């Protein structure tokens, strides 16, 4: 089955020097080599200063520019893992370089529409909900919402480049590695905050088009982040 890994870390206040940037990239490449075909997708995210939040849904979208919380820990990347069970997914998460200084959330996916086009000029729309308002997959309300998302993807055409709904936050697990020891916690990394319960990948020309398309997404809040296009996945 497939798991969505959300990478979370504090954003550097100043851009890292080329040397440590190269070292960081090398760590990720080593992880990609080791994990091999278990990685089904993923990329780094551009800094949250360039992010956009859209609230209010398609009927009355309100757009706010990032960053949203200076110095806070934010999503910095994602993966889609193919793994036999949670133990395998956690073993992959443990090896993600970010786990050593930030955290990796592992969310079971309800289904997966893989990206059909390359990720080089794409944005990710993270669908955020208050944890208390997340619907349970399989319920009529959830099925109704899933149908709305399918309609969004159909309406967006080529600009919708894959995505997936996620199981509720109580099924997520947070992985951190500190001092060589793997620390697992039940649930998302930041308790009580809005949680991702799905995402769409958008294949768009620029930021304006990304906002236009993301405004059509039926979600309480959409956090729109540009993909760095560096993963080569």
């Amino acid at each position: 089955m497939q798991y969505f890994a959300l990478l979370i870390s504090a954003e550097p206040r100043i851009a890292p020097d080329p040397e440590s940037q190269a070292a960081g990239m090398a760590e990720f490449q080593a992880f990609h080599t080791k994990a091999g075909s278990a990685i089904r997708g993923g990329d780094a995210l551009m800094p949250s200063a360039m992010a956009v939040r859209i609230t209010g849904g398609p009927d009355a979208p309100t757009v706010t520019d990032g960053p949203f919380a200076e110095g806070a820990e934010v999503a910095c990347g994602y993966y889609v893992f193919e793994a036999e069970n949670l133990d395998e997914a956690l073993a992959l998460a443990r090896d993600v370089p970010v786990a050593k200084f930030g955290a990796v959330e592992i969310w079971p996916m309800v289904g997966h529409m893989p990206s059909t086009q390359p990720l080089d000029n794409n944005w990710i729309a993270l669908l955020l909900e208050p944890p208390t308002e997340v619907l349970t997959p399989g319920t009529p309300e959830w099925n109704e919402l899933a149908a709305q998302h399918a309609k969004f993807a159909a309406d967006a055409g080529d600009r919708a480049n894959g995505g997936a709904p996620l199981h509720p936050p109580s099924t997520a697990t947070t992985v951190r590695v500190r001092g060589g020891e793997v620390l697992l916690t039940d649930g998302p990394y930041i308790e009580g905050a809005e949680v991702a319960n799905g995402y769409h990948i958008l294949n768009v020309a620029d930021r304006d088009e990304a906002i236009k398309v993301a405004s059509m997404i039926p979600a309480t809040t959409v956090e729109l982040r540009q993909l760095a296009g560096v993963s080569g996945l």
Partner: protein
Amino acid sequence: MTNLDGVFRREWGPAVAALARWSGDITVAEDAVQEAFTEALRAWPRDGVPENAGGWIVTVARNRALDRLRRESVRPGKELAAVVDDIRARTDHADVHPVRDDELRMMFTCAHPALDPTSQLALTLRLISGLTVSEIARALLQSEAAVGQRITRAKNKIRHANIPLRVPPAESLPQRTPHVLSCIYSVFTEGYWSTAGPSAIRDELCDEAVRLAGEACALMPGERDAQALAALVLLQDSRRDTRVDDGGALVPLDEQDRGRWDRGRIARGLDRLQLAAGATGPYLPQAVIAAAHATAPSWQQTDWPTICMAYDRLIEITDSPVARANRALAIGFRDGFAAGLAALDEVADDPRLARSNIAAPIRADLLRRAGRRDEALEWYRIALDRGGSGPAREFIRRRVAECIGPD
């Protein structure tokens, strides 16, 4: 009529574990065994308890599960429908009769580190020990609704995040076994140290922890930490009846009636301790401390050097400030109360103890024993100000009265 509760309690865990392996889904397993028990309540008083009660339960549960899967498979959109095909494919060739590893598999799944420790505990008590949600709620001093929701969420996580129902592969055992042992020890500490819940439930938790620790030893014969855990719970539990007086106040070890300690449990605990030699986890030194107390003819003749050494080892393993504070008391008996107070000074300001009420009563006790009554009184009052459970406060109030009283 035969005591059906006893039969149920004995057969529940193995039946749920067998059905879980057979169906691959613990919710299906739990519901089916629950239905089989309901059926037994109807049939057994009429027909008598079958000779192989466990086999009867498992067979009826399997039939109920198959009925349910048949119903669910023609009801599209139901949550269970998604797993029905998987279960049917699996059950076609799986044997439902319990096998020895079933219960171990359940122990590892319930104590999976991706589940919150309290959820691990609640799940273990429900699925392995067969306590009802209401009993678990009383044991954990939580509302029935909260415990019910916690268990449901944990089961949903196991199903949807696909936590495997298995004994982990050998290379993962060093990381995973401590979670199983720690979960069993939590069952014990909830029963033994929590002094607030109803005593019947607490007795049941202590008994269940002793049973689970014994099972863990039987299922993982080479696991020395399991032997150490079994030794620890047996040796501590040998004092269960003497640690609280008729009025509900804690009775300190030096005032307990050693003649009422459970000699059978002590003997079994010491046997386990022999098998635990070489264990590397936190249970062996704690079991050594418990054994030193259990075998001492009197408080005065307690082997304090051994206890101090065991505390040193425990601190090496856990870096626990609580162990350091308790070690200070042992040092007091080995080297004199001034030395004990000096050892306590080294840990008293540890920020990890800031919110606990560990150091103050120990300091008060050392001062009292050193004859420094006024200072002892001051520290007993500080300890009272810091809260704590009813029986512990009751005991400290008694000490305050002793310090004030004529002497």
